[in-house]
């Protein structure tokens, strides 16, 4: 045994997972959708969940974020050793959980600039939401996502195209620097250039940091740009298979039916 590896192994064993989902059973209106999910994401890791429509992917995202309509019957969702389940969604956000929505809500009358400042102040602290440093960070993030300055005076997601909404979600993620980013079908409705731009945003926010991401998607295209460490397949509320990035390619080629037969 190489004795030099021991301290590293011990250190890694002692490190808490960033996110740990334990035997999670959850649903809505009395219907169980998630039927015992287990998942661990370590610091600096990007995981992907793939699955058919109705398999429970968006439910998982909503339960992690604390949507009030979803009920957890059993299990736990733990961020860095602390259970999230008793926390309000705004408390989870302040702990560092970020959800990029599949269908972001429009809020007519609420200006993007004011919304971003308020959000950064709430999560990162007042100091981070003002001054030249904030403006510089905002400008750089907007430029990297091809978002024009005129966005600032528009209303949140009001009249945005599908691509603009998704880029705006990633802009928020970049400004909020979350511990855990959950991206719920951020690639849907985006063209190839949009997927590349958004992927670069995800890589910039997560890669090389000790934050993590959970990418929920139907397609392997975004995973070509954001190489996941692990891919999980969700079928009928259960993770039925996990593997490396090659699993996404296999799913793209063969669909999901073969997993049912195994």
């Amino acid at each position, binding site marked *: 045994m190489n004795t030099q590896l021991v301290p590293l192994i011990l250190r890694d064993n002692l490190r808490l997972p960033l996110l740990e989902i334990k035997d999670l059973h959850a649903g809505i209106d009395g219907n169980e959708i998630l039927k015992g999910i287990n998942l661990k994401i370590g610091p600096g890791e990007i995981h992907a969940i793939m699955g058919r429509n109705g398999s429970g992917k968006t439910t998982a995202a909503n339960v992690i974020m604390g949507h009030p309509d979803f009920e957890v019957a059993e299990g736990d969702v733990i961020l860095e050793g602390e259970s999230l389940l008793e926390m309000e969604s*705004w408390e*989870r*956000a*302040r702990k560092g959980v970020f959800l990029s929505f599949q269908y972001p809500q429009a*809020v007519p*009358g609420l200006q993007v600039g004011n919304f971003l400042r*308020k*959000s950064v102040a*709430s999560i990162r602290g007042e100091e981070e939401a003002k001054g030249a440093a904030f403006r510089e960070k905002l400008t750089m993030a907007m430029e990297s996502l091809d978002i024009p300055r005129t966005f600032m005076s528009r209303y949140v997601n009001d009249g945005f195209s599908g691509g603009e909404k998704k880029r705006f979600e990633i802009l928020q993620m970049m400004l909020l620097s979350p511990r855990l980013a959950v991206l719920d079908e951020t690639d849907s409705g985006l063209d190839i250039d949009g997927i590349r731009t958004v992927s670069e945003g995800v890589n910039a926010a997560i890669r090389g940091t000790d934050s993590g991401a959970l990418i929920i998607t139907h397609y392997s295209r975004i995973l070509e740009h954001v190489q996941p460490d692990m891919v999980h397949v969700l079928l009928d509320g259960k993770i039925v298979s996990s593997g490396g990035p090659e699993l996404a390619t296999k799913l793209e080629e063969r669909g999901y039916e073969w997993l049912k037969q195994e």
Partner: protein
Amino acid sequence: MDSASRYLSLEKPNKADHLWRYTPWKKVHPTGDVSEIPLLGQPEISLGVIDGSDLPPGIELKLGAAGEPDFSRSSAFTNSFLHASAESSQWTLVVDKGFSSEKPIILEVDTGDSPSIAHISLEIGKTSEFELITRVTGSSEWFGLLRTGQIQDGAVVNDVVIGLLERGTMLRSDSIDICRDAQVRAGTVSSGSERTKSDLRYIMGESGGNIRVLGSILSTDSMHLDHHIEIHHEAPETYSRLSWHSACGGKSRTIGTGMLTIRKGSRGADAAQIFHNLLLSKSAEADSIPELEVMENDVVGCGHGTANGPIDEEQMFYLKTRGFDEDDAKRSLIAAFLNSTLSEMGGEALHEWLVGELSLQLEALNA
């Protein structure tokens, strides 16, 4: 017949009358004795620029009214009462032809602490371009505001009245003629007084008139805010939009009634009215009744609508996922709802000023 005699000769309105369905005349009369035309005080009125700089030449507030107002398309009852009561409390805002100001002009009306009334006649000159804020503050038990006059050919005017009385009742009546090709945004921001009854009428009697009537109403506690808005298209190629947003909390009640008329011969008229009500508590109540009278077939469009509802739970969740706590999220959504109309009332400076005024009211909101 003078206004006092006229008022006393008219039969008192009853609930069958659309205008008085929700707020009986007795409730908004200064003494409650409807046969009385009481002696009322004068508010303090001053004209200035929003940032405190010198008033530019070409705009002036004069004592006295500019002739007898035409009340033929207004409520004879309300206006004869207000006109008679304001006999010694009249001003005229005279704006010269071609006057222009980039900075909003502010007409400050301080009601003081005793019942008062003002009749302000607007004489807005041709092709003038400016923004006017009329801010009503004070702590009197009753205040009456009668605004009459005309916005002349080609003028571009944003005209916002903001009511911030600390208590009591405000009775307001506007009767404004929009002349040929004039473009007007008429805004009402109401968040003061325990009881408000407004009767706002805009008449487009010449072609090319264009008006957007906008309301941002915030009612709290046990306020009762009743606004009636009439827009009359009486000439071809006239355009109007009415957008009225009321946020209603506590045990308060807001009422918005609209009347849109398109007279025969008003070809190419384009009109729409919509009322949105945001209910912030189970005890709050909001009523909206948009009405139309269309006598011309050749119109571009003429529509109306109304929508009531509580705060959207999905919007709440979205803001919470961005770190807004319960109160922040709620306050932000109410502000956003009111801002949708507030932001349409004028330019950036005016908008920022209005947001500042309203944010103080929102801070005190106890929905």
